[in-house]
């Protein structure tokens, strides 16, 4: 039995309603833990005064510079004593999950045992960077708790100006739209940069995210410094049985309104089967005895919409890999930045392909480490120095796929134009 509960009139109101309640969960743990009794008191105080009361500090584990998020209470009485003494320290351990966030129940139960013993018992699955967040541990128990997770084969995630914990989608494990082995790429890339992940020494944070197709379920284009988004170069595959099944169920109106009309580049047409073009870049599939869908793959931008609607009837191609985009991040401080293309297509099939991806990551991180200002993200650095300087620094060739339009202003010295043209022509001749 723990000490008596603090009154929590605000939090109590978050126990009603149908959605699972974190307050009910905390209260259950508070029955045997003074720690959680005081966490509830601490949180209720925030609800009453509408302010936060945790300050950071320095807490870590041996050998690592990051991964623990230290929190010390700022709710003190007139003598400087913690009002909620059992919750005076409420640190979080960030632990990296397996790629795709898969678990067996034995592992989850072991996590629970460790966190019940050493910490508060509160676990967030998962944080926005993709970590398992073991929330609520004292400074004293931080090392033993980490040791226990590390014994299980789990390691600390990133925090501070470092390579951060990554995320990858369910991908090849369960999704037909997967265009590479997301988990393999995720693990191979991240485990190359463990020193940069565990010992923060970069100008600012650096995030990788891995999505298996352009649906980008990991939101990599908006929230990662290096986004690896699966795609394909060859034709959309088709399956006549599934296409006919879809058409029989949904009919022509839905086909026209939801599929053909929503293609962003008008690459899809409905044709009489006899009129379907037979050229190499055409995918087609019969919908019934007389009509077929015709897709001109040269016009297709691999947006995924038609494949999402007609899953199986239409499918990604087989010449698969990824588009690499760099520099995504949210607002502060120069405004939102999307990742932008630096590699239109990188094949990801062989071991060498995956090693190539790791090498590119290495070059980008090295360039970022040397050239970014303090607290400047990769996208902000590129905005400051220009994409061409960045590409030259990481030894990537320019490509017209990297822009949405060519230059719109004349403010540039083009004295080197002829040399550039000569280089491009020489390369064409050699190819």
């Amino acid at each position, binding site marked *: 039995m723990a000490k008596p509960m603090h009154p929590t009139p*605000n939090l109590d*109101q*978050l126990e009603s*309603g149908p*959605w699972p309640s*974190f307050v009910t*969960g905390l209260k*259950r*743990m508070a029955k045997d833990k003074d720690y959680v009794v005081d966490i509830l008191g601490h949180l209720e105080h*925030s*609800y009453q005064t*509408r*302010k*936060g009361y*945790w300050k950071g500090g320095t807490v870590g584990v041996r050998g690592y510079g990051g991964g623990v*998020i230290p*929190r010390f209470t700022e709710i003190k009485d007139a003598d400087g004593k913690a009002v909620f003494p059992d919750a005076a320290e409420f640190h979080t351990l960030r632990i*990296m999950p*397996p790629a795709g966030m*898969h678990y*067996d129940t*034995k592992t*989850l*139960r072991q996590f629970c045992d460790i966190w019940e013993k050493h910490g508060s*018992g*509160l*676990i967030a*699955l998962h944080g*926005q960077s993709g970590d398992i967040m073991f*929330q609520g541990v004292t400074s004293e128990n931080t090392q033993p708790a*980490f*040791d226990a997770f*590390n014994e299980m084969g789990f*390691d600390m995630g990133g925090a501070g100006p470092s390579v951060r914990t*990554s*995320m990858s989608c369910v991908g090849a*494990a*369960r999704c*037909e739209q*997967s265009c590479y082995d997301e988990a393999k790429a995720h693990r191979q890339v991240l485990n190359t940069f463990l020193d940069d992940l565990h010992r923060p020494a970069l100008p600012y944070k650096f995030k990788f995210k891995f999505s298996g197709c*352009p649906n*980008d*379920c990991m*939101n*990599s284009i*908006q929230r990662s410094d290096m986004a690896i988004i699966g795609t394909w170069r060859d034709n959309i595959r088709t399956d006549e049985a*599934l296409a006919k099944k879809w058409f029989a169920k949904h009919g022509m109106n839905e086909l026209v309104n939801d599929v053909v009309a929503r293609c962003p580049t008008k690459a899809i047409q409905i044709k009489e089967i006899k009129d379907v073009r037979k050229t190499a870049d055409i995918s087609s599939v019969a919908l019934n005895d007389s009509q077929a869908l015709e897709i001109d793959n040269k016009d297709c931008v691999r*947006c995924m919409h038609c494949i999402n*609607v007609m*899953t*199986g009837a239409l*499918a990604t191609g087989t010449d698969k890999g990824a588009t690499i985009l760099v520099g995504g991040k*949210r*607002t*502060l*401080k*120069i*405004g939102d930045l*999307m990742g932008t293309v630096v590699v239109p297509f990188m094949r990801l099939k062989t071991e060498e392909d995956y090693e190539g991806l790791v090498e590119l990551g290495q070059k980008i991180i090295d360039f970022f480490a040397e050239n970014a200002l303090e*607290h400047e993200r990769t996208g902000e650095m590129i905005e400051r120095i220009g994409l061409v300087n960045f590409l030259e620094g990481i030894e990537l060739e320019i490509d017209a796929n990297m822009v949405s339009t060519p230059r719109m202003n004349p403010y540039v010295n083009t004295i080197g134009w002829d040399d550039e043209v000569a280089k491009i022509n020489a390369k064409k001749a050699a190819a």
Partner: protein
Amino acid sequence: MNAPIPAAAAPRKTVECGVPDNKPYLHPKFIANYGNWKYHDRPRPGVLHHVSHTGDQVWTVRAGTQRQMDHYTIRKLCDIADNFAEGFVRFTIRSNIEFMVSEEKQVAPLIAELEKSGFPVGGTGNSVSMVSHTQGWLHCDIPGTDASGVVKSMMDELYEEFKREEMPNRVHLSTSCCEINCGGQADIAVIIQHTKPPKINHDMVANVCERPTVVARCPVAAIRPALVNGKPSLEVDEKKCICCGACYPPCPPMQINDPEYSKLAIWVGGKNSNARGKPTFMKMVASGLPNNAPRWPEVNAVVGNILRTYKADARPWERLSDWIDRIGWPRFFEKTGLPFTKYLIDDWRGSRANLNASTHIRF
């Protein structure tokens, strides 16, 4: 004879093992059909049915969680996975849990057990999925509001929309407790919007803050070093200050959070998928909502109103951003009844690109 004195135990050496291999944690069907899936369908909301090129099948049942889970809840989910599924689970990016089963007949009893235990089954397809969120007052050092509580109050209201697939397309929500927006881009996002410059505790600045770093952190160069009451401190040009709060993390004595003047803003139209149009950033459509713990009714009213309007007016497969692309912003404000104020006209760098440089006007 004296017993040998035990040597002091050497500290355990950390194994820098990195991201673990996920193969031991994959459902056997995932291993057998890795990279070889053919298609999927959704037999009912909350259930995915995947079929591989070999004809193998797996059913996934998705359920909502509170994300911030006590160990009892996780153990309960493990019991369900062991007794009604096959001992393997995974989590989605929106903190939903997924249970995988090899046979269709296992689906109904699994759903029944989840719902009996208080976990709503849904979150698939064109439903309103769980809110992607942050830490808030529970754990963050700079929060303007709570996260888990806001999410609980929102999901209570949207419970039926989570369990049904009745929206025009999927709806992603997020909440964030400061303008850093850790919750991320979403179809509808709730984000703190401060409306007063930081209150500076000049006694503390010199001891706590690295002043040049703080000066450099300000996006509008409104902060300068100053001597206040004989102490080195910082001062803010309040006319320039945009109340973003960027100075607060590196300098906690520059308190930006305020119980009254830290308001909540609503943003719409973020989309990370490349499907149809290119990915989009979300846009602010409402602000000035009170930080009204513990249930934030004013925020829920605006979010509910936007969702109802979208649900009634958008065509199949239109995400919120696609819908607004079709109807136009003036009609978005007209249909939702939200006031279009001068604060919604962007004046940040590059903002002229957000003005209407055409005569395209819907009358």
